[in-house]
Each structure stands twice: as structure tokens, then as C-alpha cells.
């Protein structure tokens, strides 16, 4: 029974890995040993392959609005976690925690967790809610 469970978990992990491995290496794009937090208005939700992206308008220290790109999982991977293209909407105020991009001027972040202000909807806190 244990072996069966292990095999199933392995199969799921490999399948997920096959989806995640595609496109590009996260380690090459993001500083995986650091985290940062941003909060802003959602202006675009690209629920798609190879990876989903959220664009946020975020105010910097000078009050200037900067567009941030938040990288998330592929549509297939997120779909298996219950995320759909209607999960997030234009205008949502969300807080994102994630790994910053290696090039600061790119204003990009790889999401590890999300929280929506209006209804406290969250992603990244429950087991399995990861982008790998």
C-alpha cells in the first residue's frame, strides 16, 4: 500500500516536473534564496502556458506607478490546484511574496504566495500550492 502511494506520488511529481521543467530555468531567472513582497492593483492575468503571469501596478517609494510581472505556474499545473482564468480579476488588490528577478530593472518576481485583500483569498499557503 505504501509502495503504491509512493509510486503515485512519484508519478504525479514527475508529471508536474515535466510541465515545470519546460520553458526556462527558474534558478537562472530569479534569486531563489531571497524573497520580497509587493502589493498592487492587478491589471493583467495571463492564465496560460508555458507559465502564467500576473501584471501588477505597484507604487514605488517615489509614488510612481511601476508595472511588475509576477511569474506563476503553467495553466495545466495551476488548474490541478483549482486555479482558473477567473480566479483573479482586473482591479484586484493583491499582495505577492516571491523570489525577486536577478535583474532589478526588470521588476519581476516569481510568486511563492498570494493574498487578495477583498476576500482574503490566498494561494501558496496550502500543501501542493507551489510552482516548481
Amino acid at each position, binding site marked *: 500500500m505504501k509502495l503504491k502511494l509512493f509510486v503515485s506520488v512519484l*508519478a504525479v511529481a*514527475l*508529471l508536474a*516536473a*515535466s*510541465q515545470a*521543467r*519546460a*520553458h*526556462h*530555468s527558474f*534558478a*537562472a*531567472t530569479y534569486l531563489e534564496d531571497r524573497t520580497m513582497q509587493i502589493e498592487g492593483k492587478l491589471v493583467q492575468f*495571463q492564465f*496560460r*502556458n*508555458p*507559465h502564467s*503571469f500576473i501584471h501588477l501596478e505597484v507604487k514605488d517609494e517615489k509614488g510612481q506607478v511601476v*508595472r511588475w*510581472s509576477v*511569474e506563476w505556474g503553467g*495553466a*495545466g499545473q495551476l488548474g490541478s490546484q483549482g486555479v482558473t482564468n477567473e480566479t483573479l480579476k482586473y482591479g484586484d488588490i493583491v499582495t505577492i511574496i516571491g523570489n525577486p528577478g*536577478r*535583474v532589478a530593472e*526588470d*521588476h*519581476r518576481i516569481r510568486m511563492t504566495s498570494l493574498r487578495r485583500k477583498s476576500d482574503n483569498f490566498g494561494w501558496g499557503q496550502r500543501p501542493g500550492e507551489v510552482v*516548481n
Partner: protein
Amino acid sequence: MLRVGLRALFLVLVISTPAFSQLNIVGEWAGRYHEDQGDRVPGDVNGDFTGVPINEAGRRYAESWDVRRVNLLEHQCQPYNLAHIYRGPLQFRIWEEKHPATQEIIAYKIFIGTYMQSRTIWMDGRPHPPAHAPHTFMGFSTGKWNGDILTVRTTHIKKEFYRRSGIPSSDLTTVVEHYIRHGNLLSHVMIITDPVYLSEPYVNSQEFGLMDRGNQNWLYNCEYKMEVPMDQTKVPHFLPGANPVQDEWAKKFGLPLAGVWGGAESTYPEYMTKLAANTPATTLRSGPALPPRPNEVHTEVEAVHVQGNVYMLVGAGANIAVQIGDEGVLVVDTGVATMREKVLAAIRKLSTKPIRWMINTSADADHTSGNETVSQAGQTLNGNPADIIAHEGVLARMTELNRPITERPLNTYFEDGRDFSFNGEAIFLYHFDGHTNGDSIVYFRGSDVLVAGDIFLTTTFPVLDLPAGGSVDGLLAGLNKMLQITVPKWLQDGGTYVIPGHGRISDEADVVEFRDMVYIVRDRIQDMVKRGMTLEQVKAARPTLDYDGRYGVESATKFVETVYKLLSEKK
């Protein structure tokens, strides 16, 4: 009596069974990842160049690789190529296509779950396509059984990578695969030969298990979008020596960088002695010299159907495009003088309708020396010889060179572009100062074929004709325009086809690699000019090193000289 009957029946059955009986490899197969797990499943970190026999060109390419390049629209949805795809986690399905009468295997079909790639392995002895045929990510494969081993040879593979850390695989790669079945296991051995980026064959193997429940495939409905706001004409890359992450892998595992970069030498057991003696330095070998550029003037002119109404004529010097239809014939460029009658004959074989229009993409003799012959054989609606259209820079150049009036384009334009309709499709001309100051690219909208002239080549580095007003920035502008026009099909093969000035039929993936190369080499030379380096110093630094094996050292030298001159003058 019964025994005799059974014997006879057995004989009949044996006789009617085909003489061949290959091992069955049909089924759904899934990877086993006990070997090279770190590389194959989670993927690599920056700077993992171990185990691949790269040469110095491969190393330079990988050093320059900035992963943000995959955020460019044209790169986002590109799948792994054949030399790479079996190294990732995957399932694949094999089935047979058999001749209905003889039941001989005509082909094996393979559907690879990762990136939804489809392959055909032809078993009927057909030859591989000619050099001018388009490439695809899975290439063109033929197979043969040797005992119980299926051996497959694949050519015409698009450029991609051996590993996502930036180790490139070129479009001159040949892959030989061996499929060996042991019960419910399938061993897959790949022997990859790449004259551009490998100093010796790259051999790897994978194991696959037969699946009872198949179809666990990844549906790759990839959609390219602006993921990160960035200038799509700027190609992310690192200047030589400036890659900040290239030693991450070495540091992570406490390996000497020289060993990680070691190429072929570091893949042999003897290298352990060097490591133990703390003398891990290796010398990466250069790739073998590229064979001389094939003669583009053949004994005969061959017409190749590209798409829709458009054909490419091969064998008369520069490539020629011919559009045919109810209204007549349009010809883009006319080749060298010695082949002009054969060019005309080839056009006449495609259509006997009148040649109405001609277009010259530049004034170069290898593109325009058949002008008079083709024009005189044609007729406009007004009864004149076929009209030759070109940017006025072409007319100026031909006049300067005292080319006969009958060869010159008298229907010129000076603006950024023009368009007209012929044979039921819109035709667009766009002007750029690229190879010369009179370059045009020509887009057939209905056929979805783009004729690039010498702004895009697959045989050499770009040729910037400075006396004729060539410009590297103009060339890049032309290539970027081409990338705006080209739209790949789903899964990134085909879609808009591109006829280069010289070389094989291409698509967007080929153009973007060429654009990236021009951009990167220009940036490197620009940096050297800024640092006050002389031309000799720049040449010695080999700013084209990673592309020399692909486009040739001779044309590299000229390219570097002309770019250096242009950028020095701008300084």
C-alpha cells in the same frame, strides 16, 4: 490425413507471413529517471556544462546565454529539439504505419507528450530532404532494423540547446538513435554529432518503461505574450567574461570551473587523475572547419514549392522566388548571368502565363543578372517588357556600375515601402538600409511567404556592402521587421516561410536566431570599440567565435571588419 492438412496449413501461413518480423516497440513509454536524475528532472542550475563535449564555440555561446532571452516573444514557445527532448521527463507513444497490401512497416510514428511533438521515422528507404529544405524541431528521420535494434538517423533539426544552461545545439546537428527493447523496458541511446558546438559526439542514454495506462501527456497550448515589459528588439546576453552566474554550478558542488567547462576531455575517466592532482585545466577544442560554402550555381535550376502561390528556384546563385497565378507571373530576383536561360526555362515550367512583374531585393549581380532575359520574355499589360520594381537605391547602384539599361529597375520607390495586389494576394515591399542602401524584403500575404534578400542568410554572416550603403543597424531593423511579419504555426514549426537571400527555406525560429546573432556580435564589437580596441585587437578577441563554425570564418572576418568600421565611425 489430419497431420498432412495441418502441415499444409502451417506452410501456407508461413509463406503468407512477411519475411520480416521486427521486435515490437509499439506502445506508450514513460521515462525512468534513476540515471542523471538531477539533470533530467528538476533541471539544471546556472553554469552546468558538465558531461557535454562542447568545443570553444559552445562554451562562448553558453557564457553569453542570458535566460531572459526566452522572454522574447519569438522564443517563448519554442519546444526542445530532438537532441534535447528525450533528456527531460516525458512519455511517448509509438505506433506503426503499414502498407495496406504488404503489411511492411512504412513508418513509425511517435507522439512525444512533452511539447506535444510528433515524429515520423520513415522505414521505406526514402532519402533525406535536400539541403534547401526547411528544418523542424524534430527533424527528418529515417530508420532501419539491425537485428533487434532500431537505428534512426535524423537531420534537418532546428537549433536549440543540449541543456537549458545555454549549451547550444546547432541546426547542423545529426542525431543517431538506437531503440533496444528488453521485455517491458526500452533503452534509448543517442549519438549526437554537431560540427558547430561539439568537439566529438555527445552520447547519452535513457530508459523507458512500457506503460499500462498511457496518455499522461502535457497539453502544450503555448501562447506567446508580453510576459515582462521589455523592448523586444533588445536581445538579453552577457558580454564575454561578464556572466555573473556562470560559476554557480561549480561553487554549488565544489568543482573546479575548469572541469565544469572541460568539454570532451572532462567526460573521460582519465580526467579524474587530473582532478586528483589538482591540475584540472582543459583545452577546449575548436570545431572542425566548416566545409566550404556549397556552390550555389548548379548545372540545373530546381523549382521548390514553398507555400501557396510561391516557389523558390535553387541553383542560379542567390535564391529566386516565383509567384504564379491567374494574372501571370511575378519573379523576385533573377540569379547569375550564366544561368539566366535556365532560370527562364524553370519559370516557364511553373507557368506559361505572362511574366508581368519582377522585383529586385538589391543590386547584387548574383541576384539581378538574369533581369534582362526574364524581363524581355515577359510583358506588362501595356505590352512592355516585364516591369522591374526595386527601391531607388538599386537603380542608383546599377547606374553607378553602368549596368545595361535593360537590366535596371525602372519602376522604383523611395518611401519606406509599397504594396500592390497580384494573383489575388497582397504583396508588400519594405525598404531597409541593410546589406545595401537599396534592400527590399517582399511579403506575399496570401501565400504567407517572406522573401528576405540578403538581409537574412543561412549560409554566411551578413554581408554589409559599405560602398553600397550597407548598415548593421539597418540590417537589424530589417530582421526585426521580418520577425514582426512572421507568425509561426502552433508548436512553432512552419507558419510564415522565409526565403533567404542564400541558403535554405526558413521560418521564424531561424530568423530569430540570426537576428540574435547579429545583435550580440554587434554589441560585443560596440563594447570593444568603446574600450578603444583596434581592429586587430577586436579580431584577435574573436567576437564571432560562437558562430564561426556555423557561418564560416571567412565571412566572419569581413563581417567583423565592416561592423567595426561602421561603429568606429559612429563613435
